[in-house]
């Protein structure tokens, strides 16, 4: 029972519990906060696996970016403090059932499957390695996806601008 194990289970607990709360609580702000915790927990798991870079990205993008975005949008669309409408109980049960079936099926398959790993020596996820892979154009390089994502972000930006910022006559 080493310390790392304890940390692992704590992180796991944090992630799952706050995840569950994030999708069940009826106060939208708390939901956002629980989401935040859950994401942080995942980041922690990355750290625990010594994938520091990903963990950092996770923190920056999610915690710093998306969650803030979500909270702002909540400000825009929600009067503070009022509870979310209660979901239909029937729907809830059915969804739970479906989700559970899916979960059990997946877990069953995952556990039944014998994963065969590689035997080659590992390539450590150091920032330098990541960096030259990221910009590599030959095999195992990810320059092209990088470009594609950039285009995607551009497009998303344009879309957001058009949709969110209405032109004058529309607003009046």
């Amino acid at each position, binding site marked *: 029972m080493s310390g790392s194990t304890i940390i692992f289970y704590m992180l796991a607990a944090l992630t799952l519990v706050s995840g569950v709360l994030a999708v069940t609580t009826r106060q939208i702000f708390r939901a956002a906060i629980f989401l935040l915790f859950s994401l942080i927990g995942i980041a922690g798991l990355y750290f625990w*696996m010594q994938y520091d870079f990903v963990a950092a990205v996770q923190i920056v993008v999610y915690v710093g970016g998306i969650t803030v975005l979500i909270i702002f949008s909540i400000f825009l669309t929600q009067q503070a403090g009022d509870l*979310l409408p209660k*979901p239909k109980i029937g729907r*809830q049960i059915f969804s739970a059932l479906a989700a559970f079936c899916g979960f059990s099926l997946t877990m069953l398959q995952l556990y039944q499957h014998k994963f065969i790993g590689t035997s080659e020596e590992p390539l450590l996820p150091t920032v330098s390695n990541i960096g030259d*892979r990221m910009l590599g154009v030959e095999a195992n390089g990810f320059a092209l996806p990088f470009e594609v994502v950039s285009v995607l972000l551009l497009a998303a930006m344009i*879309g957001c601008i058009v949709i969110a910022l209405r032109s004058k006559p529309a607003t009046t």
Partner: protein
Amino acid sequence: MMEPGLYHLLFISAALFFIGIFGFFTRRNLITMLMSIELVLNSVNLNFIAFNKYLWPNKMDGLFFSIFVIAIAAAEAAVAIAIIINLYRTHHSIDVESTEELKF
């Protein structure tokens, strides 16, 4: 309590995945539905990282995949929120039940 490994992580990610899906099914507020989606994506990331660490550490495909997924998630979230805000303008509500004109 045994030494945590791949299967634990897979369990966590799968659990998170279906938690997110459950949220997507039940939440009536569009923004919270979006949050559930974020959970789903994160669970997938966790999967990738775990596989990368425990099975295929020789390359960094999983790692990069998760990074790009994060980027995509950001973009998606941005557009989704823009759309939701616009929808709020037109419908004066972001309750999913209030947007059911198009059916049958």
